[in-house]
């Protein structure tokens, strides 16, 4: 049943805005602008520097790549809880002694294959095994972390100096911006194109919005669903490369709780958990809001407890700002 709304429905469309997408993003932009304003006021010197901007983008890059994949899965009516664990597994696999032998390119390919493979397993379980996505990917979360621990013997695996090329992604800058930010940007752009300009994207909305209708319209819903999870896994693989670059390590502890962060970014960005609606731009804006909040707190030296309280309040306020545009959710 695709139409089960998860929010209290108002009269079906009392205020249905015909151009709600732009408006919804407007709300996010306002929230973002407010945060920037706070940054400018509280830490004028540190916040508005190009350096800090780059630093925010670098912080956002890893999870940002994952968020792109998560957006697809969620629009397609699913959910992927395994993202953080799959990224961890990919990072561990790519940094084993055996893999590192073959140099940075093979390491990168390894990460991507492991990520995509795990995603494919998720996809098979959900699409053909008919497991509820929440459960299938939860199982993958648990198993992937276990496997990562096993492979690494619970050690943090350093990227060897001769595979420095991986780490260069974080340290080499072009026009003052680290390569990994370009990778992030590229994934976002490709994701946007895939979602908005291709049949794959259109089918993703259909599969998530009304799977039965999609099926009767001749879409291979199962295959498509499987591909969505594989895509999410692919993104985890790419993210694994970025986290290896940033931390110079592969570790079973990487990506802890990414699933929550990624889903939160997607949803604050206006994608419905029930599927069928959403945008990449929204997800990225949502993610940036979260990242900037944390950055601001640290710049201002707030302690974690206060950070948490403030974060809760800010989330509520940010979402209230776009509330009006969300009124017409699925009835």
């Amino acid at each position, binding site marked *: 049943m695709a139409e089960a709304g998860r929010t209290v429905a108002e009269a079906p469309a009392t205020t249905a805005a015909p151009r709600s997408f732009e408006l919804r993003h407007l709300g996010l932009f306002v929230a973002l602008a407010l945060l920037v304003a706070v940054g400018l006021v509280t830490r004028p010197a540190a916040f508005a520097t190009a350096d800090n901007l780059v630093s925010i983008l670098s912080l956002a890059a890893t999870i940002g790549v994952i968020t792109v994949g998560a957006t697809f899965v969620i629009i397609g009516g699913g959910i992927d809880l395994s993202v953080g664990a799959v990224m961890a597994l990919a990072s561990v696999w790519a940094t084993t002694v055996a893999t590192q032998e073959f140099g940075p390119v093979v390491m990168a390919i390894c990460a991507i294959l492991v990520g995509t493979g795990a995603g494919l397993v998720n996809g098979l379980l959900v699409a053909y095994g008919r497991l509820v996505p929440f459960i299938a990917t939860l199982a993958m979360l648990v198993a992937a972390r276990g496997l990562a621990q096993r492979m690494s013997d*619970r050690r943090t695996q350093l990227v060897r100096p001769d595979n420095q090329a991986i780490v260069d992604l974080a340290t080499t800058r072009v026009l003052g911006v680290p390569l990994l930010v370009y990778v992030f940007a590229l994934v976002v752009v490709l994701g946007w194109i895939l979602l908005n300009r291709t049949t794959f994207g259109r089918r993703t909305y259909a599969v998530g919005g009304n799977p039965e209708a999609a099926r009767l319209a001749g879409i291979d819903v199962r295959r498509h669903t499987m591909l969505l999870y594989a895509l999410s896994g692919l993104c985890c693989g790419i993210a694994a490369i970025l986290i290896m670059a940033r931390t110079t390590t592969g570790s079973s502890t990487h990506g802890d709780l990414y699933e929550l962060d990624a889903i939160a970014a997607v949803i604050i960005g206006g994608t419905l958990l029930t599927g069928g609606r959403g945008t990449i731009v929204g997800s990225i804006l949502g993610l940036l809001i979260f990242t900037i909040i*944390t950055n601001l707190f*640290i710049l201002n030296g707030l302690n974690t407890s206060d950070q948490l309280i403030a974060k809760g309040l800010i989330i509520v306020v940010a979402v209230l700002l776009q509330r009006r545009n969300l009124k017409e959710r699925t009835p």
Partner: protein
Amino acid sequence: TSNEPSAAPAASAPAPAPSAGGNDQPGTKVTIGFSAPAADHGWIAAIAKNAEAAAKQYPDIDFKPVEPTNDINQQISAVESLVAAKVAALVILPNDGQQLNQVALQATQAGIPVVNLDRVFPDKLAYRTWIGGDNYGMGVAAGHYIGKKLKDKGVTNPVIVEIQGIATLPLTQDRSKGFADALKTYGFSVTAKQDAKFTVETGNQVATSLLQAHKKIDALWNHDDDQGIGVLAAIKEAGRKEFFMVGGAGSLNAMKEIQSGSSVLEATVTYSPTMASSAIKLARLIAQGKGMSDLVENQVPQSITLASETITKENVEKYLPLGFES
């Protein structure tokens, strides 16, 4: 740095030192239960491994580890199951000493001696012996290293940054207190502190933003060498070199960095996971009714606090064999 490092037990698979009194001679067969938090980072992993390795050396130990978990509720059940299995002694590294106090007390009351490892139970009735590191002392050691060095350089009003471990652990609070107290003796104080979660990634994230917040830093103390890998990566990424850094715990990786002198990491203060090996040995002795043969007393002492030592480029050679892998 008072102890001779050679006197400390070796990090991994330390061979039982042939000691006076023949304490290592096989005695009555004893089952030793072991419960610790989930091995989700190097230090805890080293704890688990050291405990297991120590147990393996004694044919008279039947080692019974239970599922490590970060959920208190589950650790309570795990310990309960060991009590129900009537083990001869228990070694417990609780997620939180206060929260596990009750079950430890029950175990003790059931006649099972408890060796409390690292995080301490508030109630002395709850355990037979405590062995652990000196968290306050660790902070003090780091504070002295930083304070002295800055004083020597003649820096006034230094920017000192502290990256803590998990904020809600009492040991984190102890470490910070020791650090602040030691710095105070030099007239310095901590400029900014943030907590990470003992993982490489969180260390990296927190450091990235802290480096943005403070464009010029004089010294940085990071509580934990595991998360320190991430901290160092962030520092390299930002290309910052104007300060020096002190680590915590004493991982192999940190020691190598110190040895190579290629990074800002100049020193680390120890908090050695070898304590787990010792804890198993103590549990065995207690269960078998023996004392520590190097001591005069007939029984194992009630508490043993390891000293926190400061490892620098000068003495790192000696410590390398003790470093645990992150």
